[in-house]
């Protein structure tokens, strides 16, 4: 019954993964001296931008985003404005959280904020796309019986994977191996991205295998 939706989800995720890949490869071709470790922040921004643009476009095209109640331009604009605001607030939230987790407060604030931007574009942006700027709904989605559609379940999985990935990414930092990827925030952003990619694969697969047990309340 959900074959159609799962297929749509899988192709969306394929496009997203491809965009991450392109965001890594294309600048390497065009920008001299570009590398994931060396110009890490540049890479981070390129990935964030790619994921942002592609998710917004794809979810808008697919029509996953809940339909607006009013169709006036002013309402749409205010919605857009609120989304942008939430995006920015979420960056600040992640920044604070990362600092609380032990990132240096002043020294590498730019790096920390870049990581926050990446995390936001991998998690919050998706919430914005799927649920709209509605924090109540966001909180509701992350409960056991909170998912109301396949996309909600998918959202749960990808967000959890991304956050856990970033968390695990912090583990190698104290080790004394002196590798380039142990520099702040390389391992965390890589962890978050790997978590995200895992989530992209895991979500359709999990839904596919559990489709018999999944029941949703009316949307």
């Amino acid at each position, binding site marked *: 019954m959900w074959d159609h939706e799962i297929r749509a989800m899988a192709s969306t995720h394929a496009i997203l993964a491809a965009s991450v890949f392109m965001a890594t490869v294309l600048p390497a071709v065009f920008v001299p001296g570009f590398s994931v470790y060396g110009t890490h922040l540049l890479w981070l921004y390129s990935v964030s931008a790619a994921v942002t643009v592609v998710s917004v476009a794809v979810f808008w095209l697919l029509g996953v985003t809940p339909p607006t109640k009013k169709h006036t331009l002013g309402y749409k604009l205010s919605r857009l404005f609120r989304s942008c605001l939430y995006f920015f607030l979420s960056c600040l939230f992640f920044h604070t959280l990362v600092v609380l*987790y*032990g990132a240096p407060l002043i020294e590498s604030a730019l790096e920390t904020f870049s990581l926050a931007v990446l995390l936001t574009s991998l998690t919050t942006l998706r919430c914005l796309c799927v649920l709209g700027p509605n924090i109540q709904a966001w*909180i509701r989605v*992350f*409960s056991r019986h909170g998912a109301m559609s396949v996309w909600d379940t998918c959202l749960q999985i990808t967000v959890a994977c991304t956050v856990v990935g970033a*968390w695990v990414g*912090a583990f190698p930092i*104290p*080790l*004394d191996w002196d590798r380039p990827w142990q520099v702040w925030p390389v391992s965390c952003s890589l962890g978050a991205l790997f978590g995200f990619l895992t989530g992209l694969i895991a979500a359709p697969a999990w839904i596919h295998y559990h489709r018999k047990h999944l029941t949703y309340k009316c949307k």
Partner: protein
Amino acid sequence: MKGSPVLSLLLLCICSLYFVGLYLFMGGFLLVRLEVNRTSTCGDVLQPGQEPVDFCHTRPRFRRAVLIIIDALKIDFAQFDSSNLAPRPYENKLPVVEEITSSRPLHSRLYPFHADPPTTTMQRIKGFTTGSLPTFVDVGNNFASSAILEDNLIHQLGQIGKRVVFMGDDTWESLFPKKFYRCLPFPSFNVKDLHTVDNGILQNLYSTMTGNDWDVLVAHFLGVDHCGHRFGPDHPAMADKLTQMDGVIRSVIDRLQNDTLLVVMGDHGMTDTGDHGGESLKETDAALFLYSPVPLFPGPPSQDEPDIVPQTDLVPSLALLLGIPIPYSSVGQVLLPLFPPHDQAEVAPTGPSQLEALWINAKQVNRFLETYSSMAKDIPPPRLSQLKAEFARLSSEYLATVGAGRSPSPQLTASMQAYLTSVRETCRATWARFNPLKMAAGLVILAFACLMCYVLSELSFVLIRENARRLKAPAVVALAVGVCVAVGQLLTHGYIEVAWCLAAAALSAELLFFWSVYRTRTVHVAKNGSKPPKWTNWLTRRRLLIPPILVAFLRCASLLSDSYVIAEGRVVTFLLLSLVVYTPVHLNWDGLLLPPSYDPLKSAGLLPSPALSPSFVRKESSTLLACVGLLVGSLYLSLSFHGCREEQGYCQPSPFLTPLSRLQDSQMKNLHYALSVVSLGVWTYLLRHCLRHYGNLNSSGGAVFTARWILPLLSTCLGLHWAVSATPEDSFRNLGEMIKLAQLLLPRAAFCLLALGLFLICLDPLTVFIKTRATASARNSSLPLPRYRASTGISPQAELHHLIPQIYQRMRRSLDDNEPSVGSEVDNRPAVEAYGLGTVYSAPLLLFCGLLTLGMLLLHPEGMALSFLLLLLEMGALLHIHASATTLRGLQSTYSGGFNVPWAPIVMWSLAATQFFHATGHLPTFPSIQWSAAFVGFPDGHTGTAVPASLVTLNTFASHILFAVSCPLLLFWPLVCEARGSRGGRAAGDEGEDAVMEMRLRENPQQFSSALLQLSTRYLFILGAQVFASVSAAAILRRHLMVWKVFAPKLIFEALGFVLSSVSVVIGVTLVLRVDVAVARWFKRLIPDSSR
């Protein structure tokens, strides 16, 4: 309470099992040796009867010596095999050794040089300068610094006026501070740096040698060792390094003069991976190459050459060749081929002959043995007397030979050598060997003890119900086995080794316990047919794979990596923070954080119970979130109180760690003082406020007296003490005497107050104030009789059941309008009001911890008051999070009836203990111990060691002790916070369901004791798992580069922390049981009183 003796006995048993495991492991891993603090002198008489010869004034064989230490120069590296056509990178790279030994056999020799474990550089340097067998813990009086205080070559050389020039590894500088004529140390810490030390030496070595202001030159090259650690021996870089060393040896030989001896040696070998530290042959066999431009040996290599030279033998040989006394605690024997035989002594240049050298050596060793055995008792007495008798025999024989002028028999030489060898072997067996059997036994016992804790925590209810019948057998058998082993040892060996008796007892107890658990399980299964009882599935995956356990596991795993141990403070904070953030996320996942939104269609028939009122849930959730915020904030702030390890080069220790008296800037000083005093005040206020809030400050018992008077007095004392100790010595010259007196008296007064307070709490822990309404009933005789009388005669239990809630209800109500309104309510309420009954258990515990904290704060630097305030806030936040989470969970699921404390708060509690160990400026390293704690109240020092040791221990493990003692609060707090709920929404409709808070525990004594048992065993399980991880780290990584620097100190701190924590857990539980006894007595007194 039912089963309370069982409870305390059980906890004691578990603790002793852990202790036995730790004791065994430590006995096998940490070898302890006493340092003999005496030095040899030139006046050591050679032979009795003759005129005293000043040994140092005879002309020595060599005037100068060059000592080249190539770190980790394995014997394989130095040997040359011309038939090997395809050498590995480390083979045949030192051809100079072979060239010289074959071309000038009288001048040089290459020996395998056997190092004693632990084969770490620092221990080895100690070994080949003192001639002794250093262990990890050499108990001397220099625990804080690493300088060698034992007699050693460098000291003796300095005594006689030789100019010792040192260059190379900076370890030497810390071992021999100010002992060198000239010292050129280079940093040795960075293992990845292959060249700094070596190049530094090479820039200075040759110029120094050609110059004339040196007598002994020590050069310690580190490149080979670092190359091994970084690349392993089988790597081209090793070939380069060894070739470089070959060049060095050649150049040094070219510059040698005739009066100079050259010694090239490795301090230890390396394994195939390039590491060292252990006792395998590859690690212990280094190379020793001796050379001199004049003939050094009486003949070419012959049959009676030693196959292998123990490292200790270098010391007496060098000493006698250079004409200095052999260091006092050396146990080496002279290298005989270096000395002329007796008949050639006249031909040979100078210095003692073989027999003389042996005699001097034997006398020195015997003298050391006598001194050592009078200090320490670790050498087995039969062996000792045997050695002494042997020396007496040799001595008389030698004196007779010399006195008669006979030429000595070869047997005498041989038996002297045998004597020296046997002394060294005896010492080595005592000091320098890991005992793998003991280590393994310790590990097994610890692992089983952990498992036992887990099983007990799962079975607590069954055990308490059965009154622990099942546990008597293991205890009895354990005793029996222990005694049997002791008797067996006595019969076979003649003496008892306590460690093995304890091990046998502990192991048998544990195994029997598991067997009896297993058996009862099968019996239960058989009885109930196919349906196993509920607790049989306690090892299912789902119950173990929960995030709190995962976090605890990560914490244990982090103890296995040196980087994580170095960064432990941050690691623990990270994990604790993760778990704290996880709590609301998990609640939300279960849909419990937000008030459920009711679907009007669905729940039309069902009326939501009043407990689920959205406003109440919202209130609980916001409390929870606020506490999470508070906790996260205080965690973040607490990071700024950390100290720094020497490995963390970039780190700056917290400014709050410097005592006020050392601050120069007076404005800064005032600011710090004000901050500390304010936080102390806030701290005291918060504690008192909490007690007053729950009505525990009304009665007139001992505990209340403590809370009312001793607590504020203690903090005043503390504030004054800080002020006094911060005043600079010279500022108030006329008040100097008084300041001195105050520095002595204030802390002592505080100690006395603390002791008095703790004693009063234990003596009279009840904080309940009873107000009988006798006056009211006198005024209004129509008042109905108290309701509980109705149940008199049925059973006291039933009486209690009715009495308590009503008492408590009254109490709350009177508290609410802040004055007990006598007679204002004319209803059928009982005529007794009891203030503070709801927190009767937690109040004394809280007070106890509060006093203890103040006492420990006294031992810390003043700035730590802020950190202790954070500790209080964090404890409170943790308790409230736990309470709110429990309430939220309890609201929407059926009440389970037990008081189980889930894993998450317990893991958080244990993590917080470690976290505050770091946040009070402590680190698991010896240099970071805050020794100044020993002088609080004793500014002029101590006479004994017990008082300063306990003060320093209390200072170091303050947070472990506090968190462990207050552990039962985790059980009480959800009940204490129940009151909030009752006022909020729950009890609004139904008066019958009163908030009874901790009286709920009294109503279910069985569940109370089982919950207490479960809580303490769970806490002990988490602590035990940590200590087990630390022990395993030390066992597995015993040849790691960092073992003596990181893992062994960590193990000692972890073990000590565990011992103190477990004892504190027992103290906390005992206090709760004491309160329970007092409460029972109180009820007994109350009921006959009122019913009459």
